[in-house]
């Protein structure tokens, strides 16, 4: 298992072994959705957010 730093809150995020580019995982601390943009070494970015659409 490897780790990477969450870009949102700075916590360590444990990564599973067969990590693939494009996968989305959530940070266990802040819950941010993170996209894997590179695997060796692992690099995470904030994934584009999918907001609930509230019309009003």
């Amino acid at each position, binding site marked *: 298992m490897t780790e990477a730093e969450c870009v949102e809150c700075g916590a360590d995020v444990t990564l599973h072994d067969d990590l693939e580019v494009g996968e989305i995982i959530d940070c266990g601390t802040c819950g941010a959705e993170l996209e894997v943009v590179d695997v060796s070494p692992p690099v995470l970015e904030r994934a584009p957010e999918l907001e*609930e*659409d*509230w*019309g*009003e």
Partner: protein
Amino acid sequence: MSRFTAAVVGGSGFTGGELLRLLVGHPAFEVVQATSREYENKTVGYVHPNLRGLDLRFSSPEELESVDVLFAATPHGVSMQHIDSFRDAAGLVVDLSADFRLPEADAYDEWYDGHTATEHLADAEYALPELNRENLAGADLIAAGGCNATATLLAMKPLVDAGFVSDGDRVVVDVKVGSSEGGAGGGKASSHPERSGVVRPYAPTGHRHEAELEAYLGLSTAFTVHAVEMVRGASATCHAFPGGPVTKGDLWGAYREAYEDEPFVDVVAGGGGTYRYPEPKAVAGTNRAEVGFALDPGNKRVVAFGAIDNMMKGSAGQAVHAANVALGLEETTGLDQLGLHPVGSP
């Protein structure tokens, strides 16, 4: 009374259904079309059980009838795209979306995803008669306000008009809304088990309705919107800090001045009994607004409240009210629904 034909584009949605309910009971309107792509050819009552009695089927928005008034109750962006055909089909277009609410094209770049029909912006009038009555008569493009913006505008207008709050001042607006604000298409977070009983900060910051407050009251607001357990209703609690001393009498004066001649606004500010301040459930199903205030001398704060039915005064009711004004009808025509008491969580 003169009679007008009307069409509702987006008639299968929540505010579209409210438009139909209002127009069907309105003595000056005859509904000739309600569109839906998903429910084409189904009866209106299939979707809206309260309109089972109505002998009308949904038709495609691709084939618009020629009418006196076209109401559009479609998601943001749709009216922009179809505004030419809407205006071809009808002399008066009343749009419930945000597409023509803001006066400046720039504001759409800042708050929305830009605007693709900016040439119509100058024609558009903001629907809220309490703010813009004088410009509605004879208008041919009307934009109904946002529901949270409407609750806030009505709550704050007397304070701004009376000069108790002014330009530089930052007002905190804490809004509580019902689930119908999300429209009929709701996703997972809107499912009953997940949405029930929440106090959920769904728009903690950066709410688009700040733009309407800026445009129509010149007010800087810091908005936070919470989803709470109700279907209908928007309630704005506005925390304002007037520069100088203000008394209860001053406040009563300001609110009376603003609303004593308004047919749809009640001032409710601390009387006796159970219902002492504005509450959305007291106005659910109606075009009424309750506004009020409380004075907090210790904090030099005025708390202003506005409570409406998001789909009525906050959208479809406001639209019909504005259309009444635009067409020269008695303002309250077709809008005399009374609220219910007691009522649960409407």
